[in-house]
């Protein structure tokens, strides 16, 4: 697919600024990592040069995360095949600490800091300078200050970490990585939680690192950012390298094409839309920790009975936040108008939503399922009121309702008293569907309902959702999987940075259109 272009990638680049000696810092040969049933990284060979910023792109499930986890020592060295070399020496990290000793530092998407401790303590956690067996605080504070100053971050080193905003926390984490003399810095979606200004600030620092000969692997979905910062773009798909380009020598269209491939989507048959069920206008969703930060800004949306509306966006686009805000489970402040059947809802919370016939299926099953409770208890959880005449739970009726539902949905369990946590992911998701079917929900908010679910169960869940839509249930489907949206939805709304940027009828949409809109091309 990329043979025609790969000649171009060999061309020497003269436009890059501050490139180091270009010597190969890290090389992998034949790297293969297999999970049960999935070949995550497939015979992958790549070179990363000192002083270059390499962007790693690819659709969900392409193997990007697994690759960087292997590089950073998060996987047991015996669990993958192939060789890795750093500076000509064999490299096979046994732990995160081992990888860091070799100069490979991963900054995960989820920033892990100790909020109650100071900036200096966080920077030197478990690595404190000591004097006579005691922590040498003046030296630690001075070193932290110097490390931060190196990055042009002027925060007091005795500030509580939890008092800083996310971007500054991230800069502290990067400064810490650099204090560990990182030679290969791996950033996993570092801009997902950052604003535009914060992102630019991060980029200034990354360019500075590059000029000092540090290699950076930058995992991101945001093409605009990738083209702004990267010297080289590596596209992964199905565990393999699908494209390797010097940045000036490629185009966004080409990269999108390599990421998406060509798939003929099967579209949903358009139904007959019923009356408007939910009408949202001017919805603002504030971040829980930083109330000034808007996660969703001025969103408006209508949902009709029997209609399935897709919500597509990259990490941090606000799709999940919008769904949670509608259900009333968002921890931060929400403002704007939400009408259900034309009736204005004030200060909604999940119990009100359930009473009004709104259900929510979350991607994180640990959040919505009682994993230690039985299938039956999970199915009836949203219908306890109806099953408890005069406040006393009608146990036989509960069992029969749950059993009927489990049978209708073909939930694979020994019995309805089996623990939900022992079911497969697909069957756990079916239990969630069963819960809202039992509750008679008219609106379903679905947040990535088939993430991590195998192909067969996924098809079954899709069929169930289609049947519910045909019976008049309105659905808002949030998914990071464009293919799923094309199959399931009547129309798809694309969000970027908390704002709804485009709406496309599913019949006219393609993965390329959605991805381009979401990435801001």
């Amino acid at each position, binding site marked *: 697919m990329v043979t025609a272009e790969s000649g171009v990638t060999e061309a020497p680049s003269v436009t890059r600024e501050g490139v180091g000696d270009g010597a190969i810092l890290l090389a992998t040969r034949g790297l293969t990592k297999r999970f049960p049933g999935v070949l995550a990284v497939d015979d992958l060979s790549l070179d990363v040069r000192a002083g270059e910023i390499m962007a790693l792109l690819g659709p969900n499930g392409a193997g990007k995360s697994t690759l960087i986890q292997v590089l950073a020592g998060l996987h047991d060295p015996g669990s993958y095949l192939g060789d890795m070399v750093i500076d000509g020496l064999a490299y096979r990290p046994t732990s995160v600490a081992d990888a860091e000793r070799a100069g490979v530092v991963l900054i995960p998407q989820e920033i892990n800091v100790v909020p109650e401790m100071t900036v200096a303590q966080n920077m030197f956690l478990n690595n404190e300078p000591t004097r006579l067996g005691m922590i040498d605080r003046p030296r630690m504070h001075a070193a932290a200050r110097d490390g931060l100053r190196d990055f042009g*971050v002027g925060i*007091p080193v005795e500030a509580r970490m939890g008092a800083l905003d996310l971007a500054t926390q991230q800069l502290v984490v990067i400064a810490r990585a650099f204090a560990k003399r990182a030679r290969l810095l791996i950033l996993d979606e570092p801009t997902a939680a950052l604003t535009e200004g914060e992102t630019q600030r991060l980029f200034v620092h990354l360019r500075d690192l590059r000029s000092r000969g540090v290699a950076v692997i930058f995992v991101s979905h945001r093409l605009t950012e990738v083209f702004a910062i990267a010297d080289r773009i590596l596209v992964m798909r199905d565990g393999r390298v699908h494209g390797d380009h010097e940045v000036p020598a490629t185009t966004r269209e080409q990269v999108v094409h390599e990421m998406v491939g060509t798939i003929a989507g099967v579209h949903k048959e358009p139904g007959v839309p019923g009356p408007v069920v939910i009408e949202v206008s001017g919805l603002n969703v504030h971040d829980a920790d930083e109330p000034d930060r808007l996660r969703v800004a001025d969103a408006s949306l209508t949902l009709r009975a029997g209609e399935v509306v897709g919500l597509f966006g990259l990490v941090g686009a606000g799709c999940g936040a919008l769904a949670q805000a509608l259900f009333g489970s968002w921890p931060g402040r929400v403002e704007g108008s939400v009408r259900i059947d034309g009736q204005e809802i004030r200060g909604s919370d999940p119990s009100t939503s359930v009473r009004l016939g709104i259900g929510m299926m979350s991607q994180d099953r640990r959040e919505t399922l009682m994993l230690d409770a039985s299938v039956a208890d999970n199915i009836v959880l949203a219908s306890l009121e109806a099953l408890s005449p005069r406040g006393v739970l009608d146990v036989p009726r509960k069992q029969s309702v749950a059993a009927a539902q489990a049978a209708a949905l073909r939930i694979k369990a020994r019995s309805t008293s089996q623990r939900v946590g022992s079911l497969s992911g697909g069957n756990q998701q079916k239990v969630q569907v069963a819960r809202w079917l039992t509750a008679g929900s008219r609106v379903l908010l679905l947040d990535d309902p088939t993430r991590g679910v195998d192909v067969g169960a996924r098809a079954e869940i899709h069929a169930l959702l289609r049947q519910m839509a045909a019976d008049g249930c309105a659905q808002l489907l949030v998914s990071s999987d464009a293919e799923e949206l094309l199959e399931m939805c009547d129309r798809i709304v694309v969000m970027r940075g908390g704002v709804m940027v485009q709406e496309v009828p599913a019949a006219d949409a393609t993965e390329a259109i959605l991805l381009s809109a979401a990435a801001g091309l």
Partner: protein
Amino acid sequence: MSLDTDGQAETISAPDDGRSSFTRLRQQVAFRNYTLLLVVVVTWLVFQVLTNGIFLTQRNLTLLALQTTITALAAISAVMLIVTRNFDLSVGSAVALVGVVVAWLTVRLDVDPLIAVPIAILVGIALGAWNGWWVTRVGVPSFIVTLAGLLVFRGVSLIITNSATISPVPKSMTGFATGFLPSALSIALVFVLFGGYALFLVADARRAKAFGLIRDVGPQVMRMLIPAGIGAVIAVYVSSTNGLPLLVLLLGACVLAAEVLMRRTRYGAQLYAIGGNPEAARLSGVNIGRAIFWNFVIAGLAYGIIGVALTARVSGAVAGSAGLFLELDAITAAIIGGTSLAGGRGTIVGALLGAALMGSLNNGMSLLNVGTPYQDTARGLVLLAAVAIDVVGRRRS
């Protein structure tokens, strides 16, 4: 560094801003302990008025110090465990068992206290290690492990003694628990300690100045030295007639050791990190299991010290009542002192002040002839109020 990058610093916070928020944040950390110190002082003044001047006599303050010592020792150990999100419900029973061991050795077997006391302390450490083993190796939650310890240790104590009191322990032991360091020596010790602390603060501040962290040595030193000075003045006043009780000196040594361990060693930083964010601690290479095991071993050392001290003070071991409800008093003192049950937050000095506040309430109300039921009620309300004020304060900020 390019001009461009320097410009970035301005957007985050100008240097002057940094300076002012620097001091503000430092003040916030110390704020809670200062508030608590103020509450203790106000409580003392109120009791002084209500008791017509009996409360702040040397004799009563000595008694108050002795009454508070046992709770304070247990509270120190409680803080260190709660900081890592662990509970210790077994301390009261473990103390009773250690007391039984030391009394059995000295009274029944006539063992010299110089041998019996170290053995008893080792038994305490073994009990701590037992708790730690179940928590870290088997993975039973500490609440359950130490709840079991509460029952088992007390049960074993009663079985060994057949519910009988073992007394009296040798004079050399009771002598330590009820003895005083002579007045002149006490005052000299207070001066030496205060001077040493001042020198340490100055040296630390000088280094900070050399690194360019602070402009002047003075303010940083004074802020820490003033509360220490208040404590020194009280200590000199109390010790001017009889001197300082040896038990109080023991408490002082334990506070110092725990304070250094928690705030000035890597191990202490690990404990705070484990409680604040276990994942961050793990990713920084902290061996969480090992750190928590040693956490319980240190608690075991506390069982040993408290058990011996308590037995010596009452001159015998009463398996059924020694250390009864000590675990609750310790946790209460730690929480009043600002320790968070969610982990990652809590100070030794705070726990000491919490114990002092509770001890003062008990002592003052006893002087006023207020009965135990009222005392319990008052302590419960103080606990509730302390935590409520903390929670509301946090929500505001």
